[in-house]
């Protein structure tokens, strides 16, 4: 195997490197490879972590601190953990790695046409001895990180989060050695959605598997998910890719980014929209079809009907601005059997069609 790179963009993150990038990055890489456009970014591999750790020479000291601690003694644990984190945050970053990370962040800025693109810096822990360990939620993540210096700082902060009180306790409980866990880091663009929402790979009103149903509103998808905004609704045929139903709703509110007064870190606020904006469709036809295609790819990738969250991110170039935020299996209709149960005998079926024509059933449907 070729030597593991310092950092790998999600779009080219192949399976051979999954062990060096941790579960979270591997999953982002898999989705990108499957044609599911997650927000762009890159993985900083465990090689960087390992090289920095070795170069620092402080591991014996950290090991000594932690091995002796009784994790039931909260105060002692907190003291030791803080000391260990301070040590990690002082690790020097070997030049070869730092320049590579700088380059990748610069490319991300260029893609988004921004000087300092806001990113999320997330821990992505892994263990060669226990490749299936998830470490879900055990380590820290940082949102709205702007500029390369802050990114490099937060990378060390992620590494250091191996030594939070709860991470140490977790490893003790699960029986992992403290030096067995390596830390990769995901650097991923923060989505700044013009519009966002959810999509089902079937029509939730009737279980029609040929339709992809999209709910969409201005700004972040919180309003759509929580139901505090009446979204626009679109139905797209997943074979013809035509929009077979569209309902534009008065989207009176939107969840939008606002800068907080005291710091530069933005927050999402629910704001009222003027009437024109509220009644305008929040997606173009091309975006509607792009979202539907994305949902269909997710459905095919996972092999089940999906319920996805998506966003249209204006920072990204047109044509690749629809991103997938989350995908999970649809659970309501997928469990129901939905046969037509048509007569297989052709003549009997034709008689049935003629005597009970379809249009008599749908004659009074609203336009």
């Amino acid at each position, binding site marked *: 195997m070729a030597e593991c790179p310092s950092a790998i963009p999600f779009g080219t993150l192949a399976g051979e490197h999954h062990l060096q990038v941790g579960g979270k990055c591997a999953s982002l890489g898999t989705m990108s490879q499957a044609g599911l456009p997650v927000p762009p970014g890159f993985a900083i591999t465990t090689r960087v972590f390992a090289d920095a750790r070795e170069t620092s020479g402080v591991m014996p000291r950290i090991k000594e601190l932690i091995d002796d601690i009784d994790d039931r003694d909260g105060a002692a644990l907190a003291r030791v953990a803080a000391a260990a984190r301070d040590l990690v945050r002082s690790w020097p970053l070997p030049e070869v790695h730092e320049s590579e990370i700088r380059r990748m962040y610069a490319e991300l800025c260029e893609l988004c046409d921004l000087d300092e693109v806001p990113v999320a810096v997330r821990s992505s822990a892994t263990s060669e001895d226990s490749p299936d360990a998830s470490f879900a939620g055990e380590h820290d993540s940082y949102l709205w990180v702007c500029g390369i210096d802050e990114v490099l700082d937060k990378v060390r902060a992620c590494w250091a989060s191996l030594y939070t009180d709860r991470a140490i306790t977790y490893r003790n409980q699960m029986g992992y050695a403290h030096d067995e866990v390596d830390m990769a880091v995901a650097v991923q663009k923060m989505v700044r959605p013009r519009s966002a929402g959810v999509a089902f790979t079937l*029509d939730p009103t*009737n279980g*029609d*598997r*040929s*339709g992809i149903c999209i709910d969409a509103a201005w700004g972040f998808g919180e309003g759509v998910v929580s139901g505090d905004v009446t979204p626009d609704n679109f*139905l797209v*045929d*997943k*074979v*013809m890719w*035509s*929009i*077979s*139903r*569209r309902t534009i709703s008065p989207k009176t509110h939107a969840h939008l980014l606002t800068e907080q007064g005291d710091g530069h870190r933005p927050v999402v606020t629910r704001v009222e929209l003027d009437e024109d904006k509220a009644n305008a469709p929040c997606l173009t*036809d091309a975006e509607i079809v792009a979202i539907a295609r994305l949902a269909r790819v997710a459905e095919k990738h996972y092999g089940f009907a999906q319920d996805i969250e998506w966003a249209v991110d204006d920072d990204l170039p047109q044509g690749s601005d629809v991103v997938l935020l989350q995908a999970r299996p649809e659970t309501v209709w997928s469990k129901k*059997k*939905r*046969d*037509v*149960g*048509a*007569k*297989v005998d*052709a*003549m*009997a*079926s*034709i*008689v049935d*069609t*003629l*005597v009970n*024509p*379809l*249009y*008599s059933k749908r*004659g*009074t*449907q609203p*336009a």
Partner: protein
Amino acid sequence: MADRFPSPFEIETPAGAEGWRELYTYSSVFSEERRDYEDTGFWFHDGVHWPEAMTPWDTTFLEFAIASLSQYNTRHYLIPPAYGVDYRILNGYVYLSPVPAPEEEIEARVPHFMERAGFYFGNWDRLYDDWLVKIRALVQEMSDLTFEPLPEMEDLEVITSGAGVGSGNALLAGYHRLLDLGLTLWQYHFEFLNLGYAAYLDFFGFCKTAFPSIPDLAIAKMVAGVDVDLFRPDDELKRLARLAVSSGVDDRFGTGDVKDTWAKLHSDDVGQAWIAEWEKSAEPWFNFSTGSGFYHSDKIWIENIEVPVGYITDYIVKVKEGVDLDRPVAALHVERDRVVSEYRELLASDEDREAFDGKLGLSRTVFPYVENHNFYVEHWAHSVLWRKMKDLGAVLHGAGFIAEVNDVFMFKRSEVGEVLWDLYSAWAVGAPPRGPGYWPAEVERRRGIHQALKGWSAPPALGIPPEVVTEPFTVMLWGITSDSVSAWLNAGEGGEEGVLTGFAASPGLVEGPARVIFSADQVGEIQDGEILVAPLTAPSWAPVFGKIKATVTDVGGMMSHAAIVCREYGLPAVTGTAFGTKTITTGQILRVDGNTGKVTVIG
């Protein structure tokens, strides 16, 4: 919303059209004798086939067609819920009314239908092959008809052969023969069509049950053929355009009128070789009407060669620009297979997939007839019959009965027998006929009435709409559904301003300037990049589909010619808007959404 359309008995005669009823068969007009029946029915204007006011003789094929359609439903196959379609002429326009079978008869009709229709479905390919032979023989018989002026003296041959009958007999018999062949043609037309639609509707219903939101055009796409005779005339034009370029005679086109082009082509061997190829294409493929084929005034390519030669001239320009004129047949096959396999995969069970395969298979078996019959009947055979009627008109014109050849169409079909009798018997006697003194003035009076009727705007429907439209052929052939009926009732009553709705007949969304066209004569006005708005389109307009961005029609459904051709050309189409040509004016900017069937005037 109004709950009914005007009564046919409330409709007033347009000024100047008084006496119009006498121009049509006595049984085809609304009348007091049947008022109870007529006034409780639902009648819709058939603008798909007969968009304009009819001259008297032209109603012949209308009557033949509707009676034949009805006969197969009612008497041959016993379509369980449907009798035929009744028809009336009002102010020169055609109104139709589907007649349901009485509720109590439906069950008893079922076993007969299964046996009779089952026989046709079970032997379809053989019977269709036979049909193609029958229809060609019939057209040949029509072509063999001759109408000649009566001679001063019978040929000696008539005497020496012991024929025993003369030219007058032949003239009278020839007209009767023309009518017989015409009715036979229409019997043949409906031998397969109703069953073809029934099989298609069964597949359609299955797809709509499995996938309630499946676009109608997706179903059409799965069934439709790629190599269809209806596209053949256009393909022949392209072939001739390519030949003109490759053989170097292309510079003889588009420089003067068609006579000039023809003279230049005749001037040398290579030009004559091109004309020989033209003649191969022309019979039968240029027996192609620029209209629905139901009007004597429809231009037929082979008789108006400036039309096809004009299209060839346009195609020559494109060939020289290196444009690929071929329809992407291979890609269309691939796309059809993709659509089929993806929907099939989405079905819930193997049992459903088995039913889907069976129904799709039967639909594809029957569809070549559905797609191809139109060329043979409305275009080819009708072209011949119109030509023969014009020959007959020339005889009457020569005898002084009418001022112009086409005035023969101002006679009712039954009157033509009387007129010929007048001509014949006067010729036999050697005394003057009454006709030359009587008919020219009468034809002139009728022409005035017809002119007044042409200016009248036919309402889309009359009478009391059914609660739901269930008659399957009404839905398939005319695109009339409960939804379109309620849209008509709503028209002008607070519907969305500047928005028309119709069938989403071919997908896509475009914006562009409107070009409103009322007849084939105006087709030349269409400019590149315009949106065609017309009462309906004819298949022979195919070459203009290379110029326009989208099509909007007043009438027609998913299976109308405009819908089929637009899908083929990949243009958005909204059909059956009812009011497109009435509310849109040339130059307005439209947004045509072929995905949803919505047309919006945006500027």
